[in-house]
């Protein structure tokens, strides 16, 4: 009896597997001509919100491209897989995409530590990785590999914009709170150097582990530092948790909160806790240029909300990739790399130049302030300063600025 049921179960599994194989065959045949772009990204965990934005931007771009007949006459297809924000998982998922799905282009890897773990493998995989949001300055400095490109704003660039703005501020003493991984430490180093250059007193920094829920001790530290301003390098759930709790402790009444980045998702998720915050923005959707206006209109027609910060930054990376593929006429790594080097694109953020020396996209930097506006359900970012590309982009292969 037991044996009989076992056999029938095995047969069931076999036939199910057979059906599965047969039903996927035509799909493979159809997709053989498509350009497959691998997107390992965090869909769960503390940075899942960032991953979701990047995914939506890619899907929006793919839809636009495919509606116009694809790239090089081939449809664009994204292969998406969850990394949970874990570097080891990100490398494994990327490798699977390269080896199993025949992917030759990667994007989406959201967390800088994931990107730092992935880039050493790109040569062996013969694959190009176009960053959509990776902040760590080292990716275009000491950790630069030939197959890595960063059309988005880096952490040092975001920090630099805020630091330039601070030069005119009366604040003298500053403190820092960053996430305890590659990006947080890297941006804080840049901020410290910029503070010293501007003649400010940098009173030190603390780093909170990714996924921290209780920020009370960090708030105590900030208060004790006696600083007039605190620079935050936080994103995802950690950013939302810190800002909510900082408001409950009335921290903003004593200390000006400054941040490397703040997205609308966090603003909406924390109510009024972000009002008064000054920070960098990688992409404020209110930018006044024709390319951006067309993008925002198309986006709003599709999703009925304005594009968020990581959505805009990832979309720009997709557009740069698109221009590179069209120029190269191929997705082969060597040809695509040559095409991307020195490429100039009129993007939603204005002109972006993918400089050849370190593969960083030169572009403008923005400083925003979160304000409440009549008739808007949530607070909104208002651009208070814009800096030209040559002031926010660091010298080639560097993370520190000359002036």
């Amino acid at each position, binding site marked *: 009896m037991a044996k009989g049921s076992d056999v029938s179960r095995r047969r069931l599994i076999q036939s199910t597997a057979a059906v599965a194989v047969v039903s996927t065959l035509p799909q493979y045949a159809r997709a053989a001509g498509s350009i497959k772009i691998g997107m390992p990204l965090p869909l*769960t965990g503390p940075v899942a919100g960032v991953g979701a934005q990047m995914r939506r931007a890619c899907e929006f771009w793919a839809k636009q491209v495919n509606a116009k007949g694809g790239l090089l006459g081939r449809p664009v297809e994204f292969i998406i897989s969850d990394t*949970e924000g874990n570097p080891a998982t990100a490398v494994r998922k990327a490798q699977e995409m390269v080896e199993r799905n025949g992917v030759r282009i990667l994007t989406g890897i959201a967390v800088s530590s994931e990107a730092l773990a992935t880039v050493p493998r790109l040569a062996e995989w013969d694959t190009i990785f176009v960053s959509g949001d990776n902040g760590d300055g080292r990716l275009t400095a000491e950790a630069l590999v030939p197959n890595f490109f960063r059309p988005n704003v880096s952490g040092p660039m975001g920090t630099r914009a805020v630091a330039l703005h601070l030069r005119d501020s009366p604040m003298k003493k500053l403190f820092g709170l960053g996430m305890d991984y590659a990006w947080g430490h890297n941006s804080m180093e840049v901020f410290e150097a910029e503070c010293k250059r501007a003649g400010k007193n940098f009173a030190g920094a603390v780093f909170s582990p990714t996924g921290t*829920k209780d920020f009370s*001790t960090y708030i*105590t530290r900030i208060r*004790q530092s006696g600083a007039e301003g605190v620079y935050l390098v936080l994103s995802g*759930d950690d950013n939302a948790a810190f800002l*909510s709790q900082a408001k*409950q402790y009335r921290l903003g009444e004593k200390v000006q909160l400054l941040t490397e980045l703040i997205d609308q998702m966090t603003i909406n*998720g924390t109510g009024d806790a972000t009002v008064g915050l000054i920070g960098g923005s990688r992409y404020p959707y209110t930018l006044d240029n024709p390319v951006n206006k067309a993008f925002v209109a198309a986006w709003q027609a599709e999703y009925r909300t304005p594009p968020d910060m990581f959505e805009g930054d990832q979309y720009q990376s997709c557009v740069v990739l698109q221009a590179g593929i069209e120029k190269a006429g191929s997705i082969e790594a060597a040809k695509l790399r040559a095409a991307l080097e020195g490429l100039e694109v009129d993007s939603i953020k204005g002109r972006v130049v993918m400089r050849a020396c370190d593969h960083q996209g030169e572009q403008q930097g923005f400083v925003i302030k979160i304000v409440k506006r009549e008739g808007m359900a949530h607070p909104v970012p208002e651009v208070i300063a814009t800096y030209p590309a040559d002031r926010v982009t660091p010298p080639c292969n560097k993370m520190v600025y000359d002036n």
Partner: protein
Amino acid sequence: MDLFPFLVTQCANAFSQAALLFFLGVGLTLIFGIMRIVNFAHGSFYMLGAFIGYTVAHVTGSFWLGLLLSPVLAGLIGTSFEMGLLRRLYRRDTSAFLMVTFGLTLVMGEAIRLLWGVQGLQLPLPSMLAGIVFLFDEPFPVYRLFLIAAGAVLAVAIWQFLERTRLGLLIRATSQNAEMVHALGVDVNLVRSGIFGMGCGLAAFGGVLAAPLVTASLGMAANAIVDSFVIVIIGGMGSFPGSLCAAVLVAFVQVFGTYYFPDFAIAAMYLLMLLVLAIRPGGLLGQEA
């Protein structure tokens, strides 16, 4: 900041954190005490609680209604899960429970993503809890004091429930010898379903109360499950007073550890767990070694 106000503030921070950890740990330890199973989906019920609490508070405009209804709904979902699925697994070994409850975390995570989206959601506080008080000239949120009070009230309530009520007696008896209780004519299955739902409800209660601090978000479950396991292991599997002691201990180690040794913020909790396990392998108040 002087030493005394600093210590008072930090202790208040630690007790408010202990309350949140206690809500998480106590549900898991109750379930383990009765059923000898590890509910991997505990963190997901905590997260579900936060999202349901958000929706109820948003629709009715009342934080309190959210705090009340969310545990009830999550408890009902937990009970029906136990009746529909877990009950069939009692004759199997524990790995079956691990797999099924782990599967439930995946299902719940996706369901919450589909229903509420990926954006973190803010649960606004009622005005009576939104203010601050001054502890020796240092501002401290009223809400955190409320958390401490809620933790204390809940601890006393559960203790009285277990010690004084007939159902509490049955729960204690079932945890000691389920077969004997069954032989005495008590429907043990019903006790199990009830306690599973209660454990899930307690997790949801903690989730609603945590939401104003961390926003209701998809990342809530992953950390919560680890924290609650640590509480249960330090306190002793299945021990209610153990989970209370463990929550306070872990919170103090986290709050003061993060202050004095910020580089070891994550490690502090695990070092404490190693230390406790080395001295008392069954946990602080656990019976089995």
